[in-house]
């Protein structure tokens, strides 16, 4: 019981202390920051037991905190990624201004996300949800770049979502008269059909916004790319998962009990698929790594949403497994971008090239994450993708699987673009001085890469908690599961056995690498990428031959008709229209005292005219 209070007290106190410690000593601040993330993490995993809950009441509302296996899974994502990102942030923030501000919001974000998963009642859920929103908003505007557009857009979308949820919450409350999630689930069966449909919709809007689902995703690219990278890894990795968390909760506990729930599922799954496709296409178009990863996050969340939305057991496992994986690889990728940004000062593909020899560790981590992101065996991403496809096929989503597959294949383009743009290509003089990022930044990235690798062969490590979590939600019973520690099945009994595959791959790889290629390595000479001739022409020193800018042009030309429709534009037009309307409406206040007096008379006369109707 007490543990929760202590954890949240440490978070809150730590946030404030860290903020003010910056005035005293920078190193003290770093230590405090680390402490206030790591200590609660330790306390949480050592001190909190399943099933125990902490009830208390505020403003006459009974609240309840506690965890089950399902929330534990997300707590793992949040705190795990949070801790690693915190370590990373120490290095990342070194020498940057507004460190206190950053740390403060970082801690609050972690706290609020943990709060979301431990909340067993809707009010504390909403409170933490909002704290998460504004703390992340404050991070989005951290750089002060383009904030009136990007920041406000983020907040407005979040607010629309949150308020939709709030509406759902109060409607539920008007029926159940409590705020417990448990009671909502209980009462759901007895509600009128209209409410049964509307309440999940209202909740899902909120979660869809955070999970950046089409057509509510337009905030995401700007917000992800504007936040400092140390935070974006958490933002994209863990914060967006809160949308998934809620979505699964609603889908499993509410929608699955509704006969019409199938439509929710279908719509969500398709929206997820479209999100994946559109996100991928836009990611391909980007020239800025942050933007690229941001769109990629949107796309990845699309897969996750599709997985959880189709609602078969395999789909749910796939979605949640992908969620964990996404936290890992997207966290790593954003960290890598952060490292590059820190070392070079830019994240634009058109400017940076050939960092592979300067930042080998960063490259290794990026490579691993990209392989995982692309879903290529033997890394963890494959397991998730495989399960997703199998679940789609076995649950009769034939066209959707094509769409997902398209998105996934097209994703290779940006995967390659990312690696090529930063690490490969010609080396340039401008970046010769670039060094590898400090250890605090590299170690978390490498650690996460290792996790990805392990999960690729032994997905059972994380599938077991997922399964337990789903059991706690009442979704699956304990005997039926579709995985073993390193084997995954589909509903038809087909399976992939991961261990031999991994060993074969490693064996073949090493065999050819060592015997055929490596053998000659000693005798060969390293040639810089400048030392080439193309068609008999020797390029000059300053001539940039890296075609990273436009090299996806042919593909983009092929899909140009789809890209022409930007949802963002419609929103912008809508917002402009609204502002115009508001501008018109405020002309009511003409500034003339007589007009105002006339309004009074008009008001009185009108009310008198309609007095029989009104009263």
């Amino acid at each position, binding site marked *: 019981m007490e543990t929760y209070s202590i954890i949240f007290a440490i978070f809150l106190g730590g946030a404030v202390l860290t903020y003010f410690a910056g005035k005293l000593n920078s190193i003290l601040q770093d230590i405090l920051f680390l402490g206030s993330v790591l200590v609660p993490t330790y306390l949480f995993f050592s001190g909190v037991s399943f099933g125990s809950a902490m009830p208390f009441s505020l403003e006459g509302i009974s609240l309840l905190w506690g965890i089950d296996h399902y929330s534990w899974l997300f707590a793992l994502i949040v705190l795990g990624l949070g801790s690693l990102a915190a370590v990373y942030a120490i290095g990342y923030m070194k020498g940057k201004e507004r460190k206190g501000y950053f740390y403060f919001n970082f801690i609050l974000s972690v706290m609020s996300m943990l709060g979301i998963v431990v909340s067993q009642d809707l009010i504390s859920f909403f409170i933490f949800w909002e704290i998460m929103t504004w703390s992340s908003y404050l991070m989005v505007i951290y750089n002060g770049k383009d904030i009136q557009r990007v920041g406000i857009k983020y907040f407005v979308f979040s607010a629309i979502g949150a308020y939709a949820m709030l509406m759902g919450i109060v409607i539920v409350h008007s029926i159940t008269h409590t705020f417990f999630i448990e009671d909502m689930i209980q009462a759901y069966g007895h509600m009128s059909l209209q409410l049964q449909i509307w309440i999940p919709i209202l909740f899902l809007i909120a979660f869809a916004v955070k999970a950046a689902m089409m057509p509510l995703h337009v905030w995401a690219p700007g917000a992800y790319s504007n936040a400092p990278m140390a935070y974006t890894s958490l933002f994209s990795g863990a914060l967006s998962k809160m949308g998934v968390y809620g979505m699964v909760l609603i889908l499993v506990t509410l929608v699955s009990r509704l006969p019409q729930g199938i439509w929710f599922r279908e719509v969500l799954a398709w929206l997820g698929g479209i999100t994946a496709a559109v996100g991928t296409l836009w990611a391909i178009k980007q020239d800025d790594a942050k933007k690229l990863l941001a769109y990629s996050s949107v796309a990845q969340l699309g897969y996750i949403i599709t997985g959880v939305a189709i609602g078969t057991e395999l789909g749910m496992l796939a979605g949640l497994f992908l969620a964990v994986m996404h936290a890992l690889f997207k966290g790593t990728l954003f960290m890598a971008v952060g490292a590059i940004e820190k070392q070079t000062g830019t994240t634009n593909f058109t400017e940076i090239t050939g960092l592979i020899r300067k930042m080998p560790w960063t490259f290794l981590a990026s490579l691993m994450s990209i392989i995982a992101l692309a879903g290529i065996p033997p890394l963890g991403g494959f397991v998730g993708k495989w399960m997703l496809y199998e679940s789609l096929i076995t649950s009769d989503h034939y066209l959707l699987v094509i769409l997902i597959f398209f998105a996934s294949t097209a994703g290779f383009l940006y995967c390659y673009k990312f690696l090529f743009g930063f690490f490969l290509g010609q080396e340039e003089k401008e970046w010769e001085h670039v060094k590898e990022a400090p250890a605090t930044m590299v170690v978390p990235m490498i650690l996460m890469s290792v996790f990805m690798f392990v999960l690729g062969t032994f997905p059972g490590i994380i599938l077991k908690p997922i399964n337990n979590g789903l059991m706690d939600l009442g979704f699956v019973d304990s005997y039926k599961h579709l995985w073993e520690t390193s084997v995954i099945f589909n509903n038809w009994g087909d399976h992939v056995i991961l261990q031999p595959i991994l060993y074969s791959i490693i064996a073949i790889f090493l065999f050819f690498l060592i015997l055929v290629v490596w053998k000659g390595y000693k005798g060969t000479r390293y040639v810089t990428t400048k030392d080439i001739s193309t068609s008999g022409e020797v390029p000059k020193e300053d001539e940039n031959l890296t075609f990273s800018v436009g090299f996806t042009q042919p593909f983009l030309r092929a899909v140009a008709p789809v890209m022409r429709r930007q949802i963002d534009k419609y929103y912008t037009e809508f917002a402009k229209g609204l502002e115009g309307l508001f501008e018109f409406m*405020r002309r009511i206040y*003409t*500034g*003339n*005292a*007589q007009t105002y*007096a*006339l309004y009074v*008379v008009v008001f009185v006369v009108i009310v008198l005219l309609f007095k029989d109707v009104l009263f």
Partner: protein
Amino acid sequence: MDSSLFQLLNYGVYGTAILVMLIGLYGALVKKSLLKVVIGLSVMESGLNLLIVALGYLKGGTAPIFSEGFLNGSNKIMVDPVPQALVLTAIVIGFGVTAVALSLVIRLYRHHGTLNIDEIRNLKW
């Protein structure tokens, strides 16, 4: 008094009072000069006061003063004193408001150099 005549008086008194009010309001709403607007407001208040006093009247009533004459006289009906007391208050308040209004007019004239209400629109929207 004849009842139909009294009916006429009824219409006349209330009608006049309301008319005065409306005239005042009209002035306040339409006239362009600030002074006329203030005058309009005052006229409106006067009409209102008239209305209130008229409301307190009782047929055949005398002033609510227990003078020697009243105490000894036969007519024991008095008009309602409460509206009169209220009107007294309302008048004084009206005076205060008018005074402030006029001072504001002076300020406005000092600031804008005009009394045209349409030109005094620096604050809008």
